[in-house]
């Protein structure tokens, strides 16, 4: 095994030099020759940006600045470490619970301090073996080819290896990403038939949620929490379900208790703030967004919207001066990215309006309009929603309604976004019957889409194309319409041969969807079909 380790690139991250030296000497004794060290999170990120590591050993507690979890988040988020890299989080018993409650971005393994070299060797051997074992699955995952990934995984599962439970869990995660809910459900049922296991029960709830069986999902998450109140993921999902059921007050309560258990989760604080703000609890919102801004300080997930919302909450609590100060921070923290400029402007408009400075508010609104225009046709739905809120708060109800209509049309099948729309309208007092609008727009879009799909099936490509093309130009942000327009063109070309014009068109549709949601499960199929038709381009 020693030769196996000798070529591996290792990074040791610890703020304590004695600890780094100790870990380094353990690694050396295992035959590792290439060892780099980092003394804090920023140092670690800088090194990972320059060099590819095979193994990262990172202490959770890194003193001031980023903690180990934030290092992992940033490394994965910015893809500084590949799927083959082994990331081991080193924990002390006083950080165990903190580390375990981080739901997203889990490390490959945890090691509690102190550990012996034999233990580390044993663990590394096993992890390298696992990664090698999973290599074909991971390769397919990198290509977002979920079908192949599941196929490869099924082969591994058939041999019922020692890590069968891990493989089954991985399979369900891929199934959920690929919208293969029934397959995931089968695995959950299979696991639960042997024994009550929290991840499988939780997964069942997720499938129920994703299939919009909200009441059943809610019951399942409630039961899980009753069994183990510390299962924070169940609380997170319960809150999402309650939001979907429009039980906003209950959702806020659920998130509040989850935040008490695990106050370091950024997304959770953000969700609490948003719910509190739309429920009219601006005091609560101010506290939650205050925490979120602090937590995000060293995080790659830091975002100007957190500051904008903190400012908005403060302003609702009549702290206008403090609010403007928070807005001033946006420029310092995010320099002048288009997003930062936009959020700065929307927040300023709201605060000035609440201050009674109508002129200042309108001026900021113009800046916001100019900023959002710079995003072009593919402006993200959340930006539109922020704009809608701002219009409404400034009394520009007509503009709010028009933009809202567009946002709904672009996202007619994204239930979670539509729920955000409902929530945002409550918060900002948009004078618009949101739910009726959503229903009507949905019906329209679905009708167009279905007609297009039917025409494709009947082989009436030109008619289908004309219809879907028009719809796609009307709703450039609608992923489903653009994907179906792409599919119509592809099917036409598969039957009648390619034309340069059609290929360009398909690429345009795919480009739009990719810009909005690079991980969309439907993209891979369309892209690979296009490649078959036009391998050179």
């Amino acid at each position, binding site marked *: 095994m020693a030769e196996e380790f000798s070529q591996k690139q290792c990074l040791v991250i610890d703020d304590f030099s004695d*600890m780094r030296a100790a870990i380094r000497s353990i690694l050396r004794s295992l035959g590792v020759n290439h060892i780099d060290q980092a003394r804090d999170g920023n140092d670690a990120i800088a090194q990972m940006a320059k060099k590819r590591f095979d193994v990262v050993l990172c202490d959770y507690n890194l003193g001031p600045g980023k903690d180990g979890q934030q290092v992992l988040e940033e490394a994965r988020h910015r893809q500084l470490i590949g799927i083959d890299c082994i990331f081991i989080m080193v924990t002390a*018993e006083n950080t165990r*619970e903190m580390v*375990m409650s981080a739901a997203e971005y889990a490390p490959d393994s945890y090691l509690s301090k*102190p550990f*012996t070299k*034999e233990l580390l060797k*044993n663990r590394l051997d096993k992890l390298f073996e696992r990664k090698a074992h999973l290599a074909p699955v991971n390769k397919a995952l990198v290509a977002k080819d979920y079908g192949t990934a599941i196929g490869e995984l099924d082969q591994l599962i058939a041999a019922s290896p*020692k890590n069968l439970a891990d493989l089954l869990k991985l399979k369900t995660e891929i199934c959920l990403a690929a919208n293969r809910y029934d397959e995931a459900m089968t695995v959950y049922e299979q696991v639960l038939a042997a024994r009550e296991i929290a991840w499988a029960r939780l997964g069942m709830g997720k499938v129920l949620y994703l299939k919009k069986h909200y009441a059943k999902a809610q019951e399942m998450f409630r039961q899980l929490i009753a069994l183990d109140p510390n299962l924070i993921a169940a609380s997170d999902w319960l809150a999402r379900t309650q939001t979907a059921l429009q039980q906003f007050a209950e959702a806020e309560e659920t998130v509040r208790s989850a935040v008490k258990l695990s106050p370091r989760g950024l997304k959770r604080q953000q969700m609490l703030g948003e719910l509190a703000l739309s429920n009219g609890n601006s005091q609560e919102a101010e506290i939650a967004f205050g925490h979120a801004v602090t937590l995000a300080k060293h995080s790659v997930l830091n975002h100007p919207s957190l500051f904008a919302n903190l400012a908005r909450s403060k302003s609702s609590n009549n702290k206008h001066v403090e609010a403007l100060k928070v807005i001033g921070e946006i420029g310092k923290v995010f320099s002048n990215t288009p997003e930062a400029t936009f959020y700065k402007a929307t927040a300023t408009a709201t605060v000035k309006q609440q201050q009674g400075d109508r002129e200042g508010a309108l001026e900021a609104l113009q800046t916001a309009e100019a900023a959002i225009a710079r995003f072009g046709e593919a402006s993200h739905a959340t930006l539109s929603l922020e704009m809608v809120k701002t219009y409404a708060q400034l009394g520009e109800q007509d503009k709010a309604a028009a933009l809202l209509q567009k946002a709904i049309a672009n996202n007619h099948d994204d239930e979670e976004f539509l729920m955000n729309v409902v929530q945002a309208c409550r918060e900002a007092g948009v004078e618009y019957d949101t739910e009726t609008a959503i229903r009507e727009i949905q019906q329209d879009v679905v009708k167009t889409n279905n007609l297009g799909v039917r025409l494709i099936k009947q082989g009436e490509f030109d008619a289908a194309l004309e219809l879907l093309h028009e719809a796609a130009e009307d709703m450039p942000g609608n992923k489903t319409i653009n994907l179906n327009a792409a599919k119509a063109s592809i099917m036409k070309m598969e039957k009648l041969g390619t034309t340069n014009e059609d290929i360009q068109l398909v690429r345009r549709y795919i480009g739009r969807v990719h810009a909005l949601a690079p991980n969309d499960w439907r993209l891979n199929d369309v892209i690979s079909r296009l490649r078959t038709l036009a391998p050179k381009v």
Partner: protein
Amino acid sequence: MDFSDILASSIHDIKNSLGLILNDLDELIANPANHLANPRQASLLQHEAQRANSNLIQLLNLYKLGTAELVARIAEQNLDEFLDEVVAENQALCQALNLDLSATSDPDLIGYFDTDLIHGVLNSTIGNARRYARERILLSAETVDDYLVIRVEDDGSGFPGKLPQWLPDDNEPARNLTDPTSDPSRTRLGLYFAARIAQMHKTPERTGRIRLANGHTLTGGCFELWLP
């Protein structure tokens, strides 16, 4: 900050120092350039430092039990792999003390428990067994009456007192567990902790326990974790 918090954070600090001492000792012993008149002395030093370290970890966990912060994360685990890792961690020291440490289990045996916590319990149990074993320490796992039973046995003189003994004992409340003077030869605190960890593993019908016996397959003491 009350006194127990201060205590906990000092223990944490001491534990970290001990961890560094252990690493240095490890290197000291492993380096062939060092000549020790009596290498066994160094190993004994290592043994005691490691025992102290496991005890401190247990103390910290007990503190967290008291503040209800300690949560068992139950996950499926292959026993063969798990015991392999426990043996790996304790092997070097046992070898230095001329003790044979090994593990046996069905390669397909699966259990449901918090690997971190059970690992900690086994480390300190092995630490105890090192003091009493003559030549051998044996880890094993099997299913008995639908429970997963993990055993740590040694070939020493065995546990004193009335055996087998269940902890916690339904007939005899935890009185003897909390009184460290009731049995000076074996640390009762360790057993108390082990029993509490076992109890954190439960299904709606059953709860984990520990059992002390003598002469299972080896002649000496046999510590058993019964997990549902």
